């Protein structure tokens, strides 16, 4: 998908630029954008490493495990049909925690493990189980405590206070997640089986 998206953006840009006589601007834009990507990554190196360092401390002092345990009743409420002591509960919880803490790279592998277990519990049917639907809707509604990337980008482009959007973002993400949760619960009852 990204293959076409990327290709089409460049083709449209160059063709449109040729029609409007902006070729010189486009030349400069290609060089400058590539350079900018690198400068941006330098800022991100700092912010990302800082965040990953902090999260590594949180993991090794046991705060991550504590959070995963705290999530257990929430998981029972969202996935009432899952066997209680099944490993899938752990996977789902770790995936949610990683997403909340903005560790997307860590969230995906464990999320896929959860999905495999859910498929097993669903007897490898081609039809998604309610648990799968709930899991993905919550995943996509994206409850996120701190959008680390956005902070890095804001600071790179000269924001006076890059963190000023945290509260507003948190409120918005809580609202979208609540809607996702309510939708999942209602849909599960409506389309049972």
């Amino acid at each position: 998908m990204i293959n076409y998206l990327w290709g089409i953006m460049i083709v449209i840009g160059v063709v449109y630029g040729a029609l409007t006589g902006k070729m010189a601007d486009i030349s400069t834009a290609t060089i400058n954008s590539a350079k900018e990507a690198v400068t941006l990554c330098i800022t991100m190196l700092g912010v990302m490493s800082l965040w990953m360092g902090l999260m590594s401390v949180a993991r090794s002092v046991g705060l991550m495990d504590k959070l995963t345990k705290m999530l257990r009743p929430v998981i029972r409420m969202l996935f009432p049909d899952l066997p209680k002591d099944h490993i899938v509960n752990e996977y789902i919880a770790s995936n949610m925690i990683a997403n909340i803490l903005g560790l997307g790279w860590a969230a995906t592998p464990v999320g896929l493990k959860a999905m495999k277990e859910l498929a097993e519990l669903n007897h490898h049917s081609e039809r998604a189980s309610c648990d799968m639907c709930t899991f993905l809707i919550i995943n996509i509604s994206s409850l996120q405590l701190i959008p680390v990337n956005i902070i890095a980008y804001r600071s790179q482009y000269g924001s006076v206070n890059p963190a000023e959007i945290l509260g507003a973002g948190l409120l918005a993400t809580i609202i979208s997640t609540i809607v996702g949760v309510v939708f999942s619960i209602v849909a599960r009852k409506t389309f049972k089986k």
Partner: protein
Amino acid sequence: MGFIIYVSDYIIPFLFLYIIGYGLAMKKNVYDDFVKGAKDGFKVVLDILPTLIGLMVAIGVLRASGALEALSSLIAPLTSKIMFPSELVPLVIIKMFSSSAATSLVLDIFKEFGPDSYLGRLTSVIMSCTETIFYTMAVYFMTANVKKTRYTLAGALVATFTGVIASVIITNLVF
């Protein structure tokens, strides 16, 4: 609504205090853990650098050619009715498909209008509460060999659009 700004200033310092303080209380070597984790940050950033270069160049070309402006003025009459800035429509759509392509649009918006402008702040808030719907669904359901995804897409779209609407309202109220 000043409260929200107040919370924003506290989140990061509080997390540091809580995690590091907790670690010290548990008598753990927090500094070593920090350094070890920070090293992984390099890997994460280096992994995204090539995609970022590719996509930022593509968006740069689109912006320089004037095609992005043309697109947003084309949809402006539609979006002005729902009080949503037309400049952010491409972002909301692309974010559903590709996170990295959305990132380059975000950067373009920050560059054009500034991160502290209304558009910059709204962009930041929207990005905090949305996720790449189609990409995530494709990857996860492929792993489970599922073809019939039932109400997942409907739920994801409802949650995402509520998030976008909430972002507009909250940004208007807070800033």
